[in-house]
């Protein structure tokens, strides 16, 4: 999948920017605060209907304006040519249009243009709490399975309904049991599908992770990961459901006491290992950095094998953190990658030795104060 042209209006610090030519590899360079990340965040919006930098749509609007508008021309093998537009205003909220037709659900956009982002925030993936890893996994699987995304949204809603019941009937456990039953069935159906999908994807993902860590680190330390959930996830969906019902029954008293749902994929964890030690506990700074990098490269390679269309790969300001040797390895890997790539970097130097900017296949875009001042 490739984005051919991109238009931004009132988006972050871009008042009006048009990029009408986007080849295979694009390096966006310019001083700090020039609007490099905004450019690729705009592409992220058109793929995922949200920013990868900011959590709130309204902070993305250019100061003093009331709306933003993005447009991208895409082309791929499954869908040949199509346009995605995204608008947001404080009054009307967010709207997505594909070929001028509005999408009923924003979630329908996910997976249309698969995207993988490497950013300085990735260090949170391996260091912070389990919620970071769950959201990585959710965004990972949602882009390859619409069914997964739907199960996830259903599950979230059912859990909220169930939690409300637990709060309302904490003092009447007899009533509660009868009222919980219809929700339990749905919780188990959606939850078991999520667990089954997570297990299957992670089992496959392991090999990709090991390969990419070895490539980027140049070392023989083996990587591994363990998917931790409330049951044995390897037994198939019907058996997961059985275990789920049992666990729910077991935890009922505790659930009533705590007034919330305690069993399910919303409490899952993924534990990463380097050698035979747990990364989160024992990993050095450098190991964390390389591990996070490998996770995203593995995602890219997994998608490339699994999907009919290659994902768009974005690297936001990651080269400053790498030593010259790793930079070299990563750049070589990128050069050989057939999918479209976007790189932002304040400093264009590391690229100039490895990549020939001919403007045809490889393009260097210079930005200053949210305006394109040069292309090579």
């Amino acid at each position, binding site marked *: 999948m490739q984005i051919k042209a991109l238009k931004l209006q009132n988006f972050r610090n871009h008042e009006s920017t048009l990029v009408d030519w986007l080849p295979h590899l694009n390096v966006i360079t310019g001083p700090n605060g020039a609007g490099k990340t905004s450019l690729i965040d705009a592409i992220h919006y058109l793929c995922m209907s949200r920013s990868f930098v900011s959590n709130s749509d309204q902070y993305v609007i250019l100061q003093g304006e009331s709306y933003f508008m993005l447009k991208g021309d895409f082309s791929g093998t499954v869908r040949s040519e199509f346009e995605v537009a995204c608008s947001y205003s404080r009054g009307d909220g967010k709207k997505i249009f594909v070929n001028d037709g509005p999408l009923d659900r924003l979630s329908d956009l996910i997976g249309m243009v698969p995207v993988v982002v490497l950013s300085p925030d990735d260090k949170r993936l391996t260091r912070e709490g389990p919620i970071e890893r769950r959201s990585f996994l959710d965004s990972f699987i949602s882009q390859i399975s*619409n*069914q997964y995304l739907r199960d996830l949204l259903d599950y979230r*809603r059912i859990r*909220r*309904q169930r939690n409300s019941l637990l709060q*309302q009937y904490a003092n009447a456990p007899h009533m509660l049991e009868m009222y919980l039953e*219809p929700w339990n069935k*749905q919780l188990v159906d959606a939850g078991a599908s999520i667990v089954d999908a997570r297990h299957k994807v992670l089992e496959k993902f392991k090999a990709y992770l090991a390969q990419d860590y070895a490539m980027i680190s140049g070392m023989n330390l083996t990587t591994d990961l363990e998917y931790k959930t409330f049951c044995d996830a390897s037994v198939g969906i019907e058996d997961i459901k059985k275990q789920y019902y049992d666990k729910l029954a077991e935890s009922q008293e505790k659930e009533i006491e705590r007034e919330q749902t305690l069993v399910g994929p919303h409490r899952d964890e993924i534990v990463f290992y380097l050698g035979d030690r747990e990364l989160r506990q024992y990993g050095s700074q450098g190991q964390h950095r390389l591990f996070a990098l490998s996770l995203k490269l593995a995602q890219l390679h997994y998608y490339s094998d699994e999907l009919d269309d290659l994902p768009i790969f974005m690297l936001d300001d990651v080269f400053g953190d790498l030593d010259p040797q790793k930079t070299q390895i990563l750049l070589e890997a990128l050069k050989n990658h057939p999918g479209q790539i976007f790189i932002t970097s304040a400093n264009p130097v590391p690229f100039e030795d490895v990549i020939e900017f001919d403007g045809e296949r490889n393009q260097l875009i210079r930005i200053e104060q949210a305006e394109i001042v040069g292309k090579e």
Partner: protein
Amino acid sequence: MQLTSEYLERAIEQLSKLPGTGRKSAQRIAIHLLKQNDEYALKLANAIIDLKQKVIRCSTCGNVSDADPCNICDNSKRENGQICVVEEFNDVYIIEKTNEFRGRYHVLGGVISPMDNVGPDQLKIQDLLKRVGGNEHIKEVILALNPDAEGEATSYYINKLLTPYEVKVTRIAYGIPMGTELEFIDEATLSRAFTSRSAF
């Protein structure tokens, strides 16, 4: 800005409270009304008042009606053996338009949604049980609720409550909308369509 008519302003304010009507549309409607003759304005005003004062709920099925019982419950030509359970009265209207169903209705007035504080007691579920257990000779209860989490939970709950009764509980089929191609159907709908497939 200087207002020249307090009354115009008042009308705009009330109109802008209508669903899907912003201030601009409200202004347009108010100015349009101002240009009409008195008779039209009176008719509109009376229609609104009648709507609020004369439309009642049928005490049998919960549907909106001018009389109690409503003309569906009162119609001796409709079949007695079947009750179609719907969420709101506008669902009755939609199903009636198909001319497919000739039985009776039961309007729940919502679906179970604990986070909005709607439980079974806020809905006309007990009334449904009374009808099924009463002398309407009901043989089949057809659940026609929306296929979302709340609709599913409500269907499940009603089905459970109906088990002691000698009545067949069915639900409307979920599947492929007419006029679309398989290619454009999402996975969830397609797999639902497979589970609820029927003999050719």
